[in-house]
């Protein structure tokens, strides 16, 4: 089943087009990688999926993005849409709340008040984000005081607390040490059974390790979409794809 459909997508800020001609379908329970150098339009793509264009009057989105078959540009309840989509940013954002409150925030925003229910959600999400063992004795200390790697796992736990159908990670490992990165990657592999994941990454090897299929963005174009391994070893449509994954530019 197609989870996220993208058709003729174009994104511009003012007069400047920063992404155009994007077409692909992301299947349910797939890890879909997006690789490409800076300014390729990767982050803007994620923003368009999540309707963050509403917070930026300059941002213009054309074409169709469908989530569960529904055009996101036509969704009236954008809050409901965003709740089904978890987002993790490049730099961890530990909100200045307790660890518990960080993870309980999304359920609370959605109206969950029952403390016992929240306890269950908090423990489950922190466990899945591989953070529970490190913080279970100090759930009341500040989330923003954790180390960078812990904060990033906290951010992932927070995204999971929304119980999302789609999880979008934007270069999540930029501020995380290699060991933690590996732990998070293991978590992502397990999550594949439950949800769909879009993994934007600067590390082509990370895409190779995790992504079932990968799209290569370059200079505001989606140059290539294919089975990840094909980008590295198989046929490619565009030679620049092979050059990029082999590290010859970028």
């Amino acid at each position, binding site marked *: 089943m197609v989870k996220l459909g993208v058709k003729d997508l174009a994104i511009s800020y003012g007069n400047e087009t920063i992404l155009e001609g994007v077409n692909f379908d992301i299947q349910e329970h797939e890890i879909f990688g997006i690789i490409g150098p800076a300014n390729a339009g990767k982050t803007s793509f994620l923003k368009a999926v*999540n309707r*963050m264009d509403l*917070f930026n*009057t300059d941002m213009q989105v054309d074409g169709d993005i469908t989530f569960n078959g529904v055009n996101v540009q036509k969704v009236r309840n954008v*809050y*409901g*849409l*965003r*709740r089904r*989509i*978890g*987002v993790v*940013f490049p*730099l961890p*954002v*530990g*909100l*200045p*709340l307790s660890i518990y409150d960080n993870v309980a*925030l*999304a359920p609370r*925003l*959605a109206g969950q008040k029952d403390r016992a229910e929240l306890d269950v959600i908090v423990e489950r999400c922190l466990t899945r984000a591989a953070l529970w063992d490190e913080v279970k004795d100090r759930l009341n200390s*500040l989330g*923003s*005081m954790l180390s960078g790697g812990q904060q990033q796992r906290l*951010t992932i736990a*927070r*995204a999971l607390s*929304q119980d999302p159908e789609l999880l979008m990670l934007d270069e999540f490992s930029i501020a995380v040490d290699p060991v933690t990165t590996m732990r998070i990657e293991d978590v992502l592999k397990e999550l594949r059974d439950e949800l769909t994941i879009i993994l934007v990454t600067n590390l082509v090897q990370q895409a190779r390790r995790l992504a079932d299929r990968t799209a290569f963005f370059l200079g505001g174009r989606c140059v290539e979409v294919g089975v990840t391994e094909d980008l590295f070893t198989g046929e490619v449509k565009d030679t620049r794809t092979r050059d990029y994954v082999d590290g010859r530019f970028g």
Partner: protein
Amino acid sequence: MFETTSINKKNITQQKLVRIGLGTMTGILILPVALILGTLIYKGAPMISFEFLFTGPTKGMTAGGIFPALLGTVLLVLVALLASVPLGVAAAIYLSEYAPDNWFTRSINLAIINLAGVPSIVHALFGVGAFVIFFGFGTSILAASLTLAIMTLPVVIVATRESLQAVPMSFREACWNMGATRWQTIRRVVLPNAVTGILTGVILEVSRTAGETAPIMFTGAAFFLPLLPQGVLDQTMALSLHLFVVSTQVPNMPEQLPFGVALVLISMVLLMNSLSIALRMYLRGKKKW
């Protein structure tokens, strides 16, 4: 390897001179403050007593205390705060969190900054026209407080807006991405982290309000009243106006009395300011990111 070259020497001399120069300027800055405070304490402190603070003036104001003026100032400040804080904070939240960044918003911001530059006597005359006459409050605590409120609104708005904008954008985005509405984001994440700055602004407003004379002169503060005000529609005495009166308007005034009044007024203001600094230091220690 570490020989001093002539260029090093020049840089080091320059650095010393700049340091001395800047230090001297700072010293000159402190001088008037020290002199004012010193004189006030030296001449005014003997006046301060329980009776001075808690009884009314007697013998044509040349003796007795300042209680009606002290109480009046407290009342004026309180009522002014009740009007300006909700209004100012609400406006600042709108301007910072909701208003689109266009020429209209920018001109509103400009207008607010300009409002802070309007001379207080102009505010006073506006207060007479608007509150005393048009709204029919008469010369009263209400009219005077509202005039003070309008005058100090920019302080509250600017302080609130700046503390809201000091909350990192990434916090808001994280919240929005979770499906929070703007208001949920403001209430749960932005306001709790901005409240210290807002409080500081409010306290600064208090100290400014307490000292103003012109805006209350024509709108609600009286030269002398035999009775304490019974409600917000009564006139009141106020410390700032009282100081003006006892220093210039009353013959045969004992020399020390105005210094006593001034000392009380300035202590109130300094107390508020130090409270604000203490609060800021305490809360900065608890800063969460």
